[in-house]
C-alpha cells in the first residue's frame, strides 16, 4: 500500500483522513513499544520557531534526532532576518532550499498554510497563533487510544475554556471520525463555539452542556482539562466557577476506574497537584507521547 503521507504538508487536523490519523497513531504506539529506526539518516529538518515554545520544539527536535535526522533552525524571531523585515514567504523559500522538511511555529494565524503554499518541501504546523496545532491533536488521540485501548464510542468531557482553546477545537473536530458521547463543562461565557456544535450535530454525535465537574465525573472515560485564564471570565463568573471546574482527589473518588485525566499543559490551578499521585492522572504521559507521535509523522512524511 502506498503511503499517502509521503511528502505531504500537515497544516490542520482536517488535512488528514481517518485512515491517515489511525496510521500515525498506530505507528507512534509501535515506536513507543519497540524503539525507533534510524529512518531519517542523512535528512535535514528545519525547526523554525518564530516564538518561544518548550514542549513542542524540544519534542520535534528530539523526534527528528532519534530518527537520525540533523536539525537546523532557530527558536525565536530575533535570530532571523524577520527582525530586518524579511517576509515569512522569503524565509520559507530559503529554508526550502536548505532542508528536507520544515516544522514551523509562528504567532500569526494562517502562517503555516502560507508557508506550505510557498515551500517546496513538506511543512508541519507546530502552532499558528490561535488557529491550529495538529500534532497536539495527534498526541491527544494517541494518548486516548493508549489509555482506553480504543478511540470509538468513548465518553469524553471537555472542561474549562472551550471558547478560545484551540486544542479542544481540534480534538473535537478529529473525534468526529470516531464518534462518542461528549460533555462540555464550562461557564456560559466560555462555551464551545457554534461551529463545533454544528459539526457534532452534522455527525450525529450527542453532547450536553454542564457547569460543574461534579455533574459529569462519574460518567466519563476521559476528562480533558484546559487552562482557565481568569481575564477571560466575566467578573461575576470568576468566583463562582473556579471551584466548580477545579479537579481534586476528592472529586475523583466518584470516577470510574478507567477514567484518565488529560491536559495539554501548562496547567495552573485547575488540577490540584495531589491529583498527580492518583492512577487517573495521565497528563505527563500525554506530554511524553508528543515525541512518539512526531517521530511517526516525520517518518511517514519522509519515507515512501
Amino acid at each position: 500500500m502506498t503511503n499517502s503521507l509521503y511528502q505531504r504538508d500537515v497544516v490542520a487536523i482536517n488535512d488528514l483522513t481517518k485512515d491517515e490519523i489511525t496510521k500515525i497513531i498506530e505507528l507512534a504506539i509501535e515506536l513507543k513499544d519497540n524503539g525507533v529506526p534510524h529512518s531519517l539518516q542523512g535528512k535535514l529538518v528545519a525547526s523554525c520557531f518564530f516564538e518561544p515554545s518548550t514542549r513542542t520544539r524540544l519534542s520535534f527536535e528530539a523526534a527528528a534526532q532519534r530518527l537520525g535526522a540533523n536539525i537546523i533552525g532557530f527558536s525565536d524571531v530575533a535570530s532571523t532576518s524577520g527582525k530586518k523585515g524579511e517576509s515569512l514567504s522569503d524565509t520559507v523559500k530559503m529554508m526550502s532550499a536548505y532542508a528536507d522538511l520544515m516544522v514551523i511555529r509562528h504567532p500569526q494565524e494562517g502562517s503555516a498554510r502560507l508557508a506550505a503554499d510557498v515551500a517546496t518541501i513538506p511543512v508541519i504546523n507546530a502552532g499558528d497563533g490561535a488557529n491550529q496545532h495538529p500534532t497536539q491533536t495527534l498526541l491527544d488521540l494517541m494518548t486516548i487510544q493508549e489509555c482506553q485501548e480504543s478511540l470509538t464510542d468513548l465518553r469524553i468531557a471537555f472542561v474549562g475554556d472551550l471558547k478560545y482553546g484551540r486544542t479542544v477545537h481540534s480534538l473535537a473536530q478529529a473525534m468526529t471520525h470516531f464518534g462518542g458521547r461528549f460533555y462540555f463543562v464550562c461557564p456560559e461565557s466560555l462555551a464551545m463555539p457554534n461551529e463545533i456544535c454544528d459539526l457534532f450535530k452534522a455527525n450525529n454525535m450527542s453532547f450536553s452542556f454542564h457547569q460543574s465537574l461534579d455533574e459529569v465525573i462519574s460518567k466519563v472515560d476521559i476528562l480533558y482539562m484546559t487552562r482557565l485564564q481568569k481575564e477571560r471570565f466575566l467578573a461575576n463568573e470568576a468566583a463562582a466557577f473556579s471551584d466548580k471546574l477545579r479537579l481534586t482527589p476528592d472529586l475523583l473518588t466518584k470516577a470510574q476506574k478507567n477514567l484518565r485525566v488529560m491536559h495539554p499543559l501548562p496547567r495552573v490551578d485547575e488540577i490540584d497537584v495531589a491529583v498527580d499521585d492518583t492512577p487517573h492522572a495521565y497528563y505527563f504521559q500525554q506530554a511524553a507521547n508528543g515525541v512518539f507521535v512526531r517521530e511517526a509523522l516525520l517518518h511517514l512524511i519522509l519515507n515512501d
Partner: protein
Amino acid sequence: MSEKLSVNAIHNGTVIDHIVAGQATKIIRLLALINNRNQMTIGLNLTSGSQQLKDLIKLEQCQLSEKDLQQIAVFAPGATVNTIQDYKVTNKLKLTLPEQVADIFICPNKNCISHSEKTTKLFYIKEQNRNVGLQCKYCQQIFLRDEMLLTIR
C-alpha cells in the same frame, strides 16, 4: 401604487433587481456607489411575486465589473443584474453564491498572516442555516458576510 410607477426606467446603465430586502444599502456601501456622481434610484421593501419583499437598485451610466458582481453575489445571491441600453434589457444575469472569492475582502482577523504578506486574500463561502459565512483560507476563521463590510478592499 404599482411598482412600475414607483421606480423610473433608466436610459443606459444597470438594474440590480430581486435583491433580498435589507441588502441594497449594504451593496451600495460595498461598491462605494455613493461616490460616483451618476443618477441612482433605490427601491427598498418593494413587493415582489417571487419573494415577499425585495430591494432594487438602478444605476444610470454604470457598468459593473466582474469583481463588483462577485461582491454583490455574496450579499444578494438570487439577484438579477440587467444591462440596459436605450431603455432595453440587453443582458440579464442571475447571480448565484460563489464557492470562493479572491482579492475582494480583507480578513477581519487582525492577527491573520494575510495582512503582513503579499498574498491572495481568498475566502471560501460557507452557507449554513441561511447564514452566509466567509472562511479565510489562511487563518480559517469564519466571518458573517456583514462583518466583511468593515474591511472592504
